[in-house]
């Protein structure tokens, strides 16, 4: 029997934050692990923005191996599915800190007394660039500063209300040679220091609800502007989510809470699906893409 949970990450409220499915396979022996194509098929079936698979560690550098899949491709780095997977492991009584071996290297995760989970990721400061052609028109607003970091554009606007109301031309954003466009402004609420939204149409997602990796870019920018190393970001997508950012040297520690929305088991027929040899699942062989 394989357990599956759906967890809303970077929120303390169900149906907000960014949903991820979490599947623990770490207690299986290597020869019991599913065929390679199964991971992508399952992620497509569950169709959450990301699915995290917790697998046995391959050496003593890490406690678990962690892989992330969108419904279409395997991901290079996914903050919200890491938060969701960690939340489940801590729920199950695993002691922290937990070291995950991932495509993005080994990194560690810890839980504080309140239940909040902190991910230790590399900071990705944005460097200033000339605004790309058509960006202001596509956003419908003139950025006061544009940078590039972590494979994303960062567009800073003067007014948080503009960020909240943005309806960008996604076809234009999809044409830029980056994974997506982060749009940000100072905060208009007391419990956050800045607001943001993230549009990665090139990855087949119009808007990501809450994006850990975007905050490894946002953190250094706002830390420089506000002169502080501890900040709270509010991602003002329709679902909304809160991300704590703490800059320590060249690392960005992201803190968030998570809520389990669904807890169940995969039906036996799913665990042993014969792989159709003639038609590999969509996404196999396509380059992995980093997202949240």
């Amino acid at each position, binding site marked *: 029997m394989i357990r599956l949970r759906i967890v809303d990450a970077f929120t303390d409220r169900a149906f907000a934050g960014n949903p991820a499915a979490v599947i623990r396979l770490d207690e299986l022996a290597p020869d019991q692990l599913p065929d390679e194509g199964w991971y992508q098929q399952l992620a497509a*079936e569950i169709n959450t923005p990301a699915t995290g698979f917790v697998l046995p560690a391959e050496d003593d550098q890490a406690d678990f191996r962690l892989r992330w899949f969108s419904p279409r491709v395997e991901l290079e780095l996914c903050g919200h599915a890491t938060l969701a997977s960690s939340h489940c492991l801590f729920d199950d009584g695993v002691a922290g800190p937990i070291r995950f071996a991932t495509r993005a290297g080994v990194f560690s995760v810890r839980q504080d007394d309140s239940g909040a989970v902190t991910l230790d990721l590399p900071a990705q400061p944005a460097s200033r660039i000339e605004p790309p052609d058509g960006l202001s028109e596509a956003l419908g607003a003139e950025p006061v500063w544009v940078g590039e970091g972590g494979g994303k554009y960062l567009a800073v606007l003067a007014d948080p209300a503009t960020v909240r109301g943005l309806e960008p031309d996604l*076809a234009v954003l999809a044409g830029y040679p980056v994974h997506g466009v982060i749009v940000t402004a100072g905060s208009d609420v007391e419990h956050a220091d800045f607001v943001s939204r993230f549009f990665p149409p090139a990855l087949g997602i119009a808007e990501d609800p809450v994006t850990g990796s975007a905050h490894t870019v946002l953190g250094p920018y706002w830390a420089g502007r506000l002169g502080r190393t501890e900040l709270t970001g509010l991602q003002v997508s329709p679902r909304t989510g809160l991300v704590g950012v703490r800059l320590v040297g060249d690392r960005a520690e992201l803190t968030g809470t998570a809520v389990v929305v*669904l807890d169940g088991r995969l039906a036996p027929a799913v665990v042993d699906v014969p792989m159709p040899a003639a038609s590999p699942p969509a996404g196999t062989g396509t380059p992995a893409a980093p997202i949240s």
Partner: protein
Amino acid sequence: MTLRLRTVDAFTDRPFTGNPAGVIRLDDRAELPPESWYRAVAGELNLSETAFLERWDGADYRLPAAIGHQPEYLGVTPSGYLLAVIDGDSEVRRLRPDLATIKQQVGHGVIVSAVAAESSGADIVSRFFAPALAVPEDPVTGAAHTVLLPYWSQRLGRTELTAAQVSPRGGRLALRLVGDRVLITGRAVTVLDARLLSVPSGRLAS
């Protein structure tokens, strides 16, 4: 307080094919959740929805460019769905329609259909594209076959047909026309059996 939720792949006997649907039984509840809860759960599970089609009639001229084929027959329903019949099973399978054009110019959605190849074991093949409903392609669509059957029944002179929806996931339906009703027969396989943990407290008497 939790609710049981099952994910079922419909119109198939093999997991990861057919059309996935979440099923939640609320029929034994004295009080039902507020309207917003249904939308929140559907949004969370992110499963494709089925479009409902009505009687078809008429024609449309914007479609050939969007699907890259000149249809040999074109029909439109009162609610704006199109049925385009083209020549060739493999043409339907290989179709890569211009979804932006369909979304902007061609109503709610397009069913593309053809006579099935003999080797397929079906009588007709089809695919259904509904980008305006945020469903670029629906994997297997019962409602589309309430449009397909009356057309093919007349053309092939039969009231019972086997249909293959040849989307990447794929699925099969057995169809029977009885007077003005379409009887659809299909299989389904349960994929996930779970408890939904977020239920508005006090709103659902068990």
